[in-house]
């Protein structure tokens, strides 16, 4: 019952985000587009995946997704792709690119949901570390570029979006560090506790 409600909420959110007026509002500014709309679509994908029963441990798909490697790679690639200025322009100007943006980010969100709990701390650190590092570099490039990178956005917007991209990268990394500490995995990693790393996650889910 709860899953069904979650799916309905996710579906409602998706329909809301896909409305032309709403898309227009988000995409009229680069920061809103990249740092609010794109994460919201990804989060919707995450919610939709959960609505269909959540990350079932015995799913036959897991043989193709050991440690969540496939899913995390898919998610990281899809979310990184939409940081390319040309891709952002295309999403704003071409309907098929906009559809591809929604599709790929929904898939990324769902892939994160299924794969994140399967990944141990080391695999998580690898993907998260790479994503944060790349997002921060892209953010710095956006701030330092001498010209406008997106044909559809102003130079000020680009600097603003770059700044918030760096902030988002830092926050994502800090959130993961906090989770590492809060779950007790950090202590286990440092050898203070005999329970193996990541075991806490398995108990929870």
């Amino acid at each position, binding site marked *: 019952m709860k899953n069904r409600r979650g799916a309905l909420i996710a579906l409602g959110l998706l329909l809301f985000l896909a409305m032309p007026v709403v898309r227009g509002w988000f995409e009229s500014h680069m920061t809103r587009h990249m740092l609010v709309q794109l994460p919201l679509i990804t989060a919707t994908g995450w919610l939709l995946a959960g609505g269909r029963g959540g990350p079932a441990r015995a799913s036959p798909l897991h043989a193709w997704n*050991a440690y969540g490697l496939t899913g995390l790679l898919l998610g990281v690639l899809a979310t990184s792709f939409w940081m390319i200025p*040309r891709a952002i322009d295309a999403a704003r100007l071409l309907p098929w690119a906009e559809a591809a943006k929604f599709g790929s980010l929904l898939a990324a969100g769902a892939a994160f949901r299924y794969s994140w709990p399967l990944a141990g701390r080391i695999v998580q650190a690898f993907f998260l570390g790479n994503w944060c590092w790349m997002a921060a570099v892209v953010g710095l490039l956006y701030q330092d570029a001498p010209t406008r*990178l997106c044909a559809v956005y102003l130079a000020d917007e680009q600097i603003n979006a770059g700044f918030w991209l760096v902030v988002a990268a830092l926050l994502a990394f800090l959130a993961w560090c906090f989770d590492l500490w809060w779950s007790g995995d950090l202590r286990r990693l440092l050898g203070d506790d005999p329970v193996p790393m990541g075991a806490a996650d398995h108990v929870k889910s």
Partner: protein
Amino acid sequence: MRTLLAVLCVALAGGSALVLTTDGLRAFTSEDARRLEVSEAPVQLSVLEVLGTDGRPVSLSDPDRVTLLDFVYTRCETVCRALGSEFQQLQTEIRARGLQDRVRLLSISFDPEHDTPAELAAYARHQRADGAVWQFAALANSAELPKLLSNFGIVVIPDGLGGFEHNAAIHVVDQRGRLVRIMDLANPAAALAEALARIEADNATKARAGS
């Protein structure tokens, strides 16, 4: 094993998407893409009626001269001022070297509602444009603006201060009305060199055909 296969497939798909959308990692911005596209395959420009400062039609290309073309709007305070000065430099250079029968300058307004022939004439005077070298024009029918802009790959957006922002560059149009190169605004000398190289190549072809 199956995971390895799946990871490889995802990596391959992601890599292909990246390579395809960036023209083989050569164009990460739409501006780079537009320039690359034009340099690899010249774009035949549509025949659109543009009117000059005297209200008479002006051609986007000239059968005897290479055209260096830019987009402006006369209310512009920022980049068009810069473009104006680049084109002023080019005009000075062209006149000093006596190249006016080989290269011409043409500034097209993308604000035809406001930029009437009279407005353009005032702007041309302000820029000290010599009509034999540098012409100004705007669309006769402003409904054709989207067609004109898409022909050149220009995207115009409001700058939030009552003006416009657009991808500014120097467009090289050959004698047959094809957009053949898009050059950096910051380097007008390179645009002029490109225009002259085209004229040389064309003359050489004509000489061979004549002999």
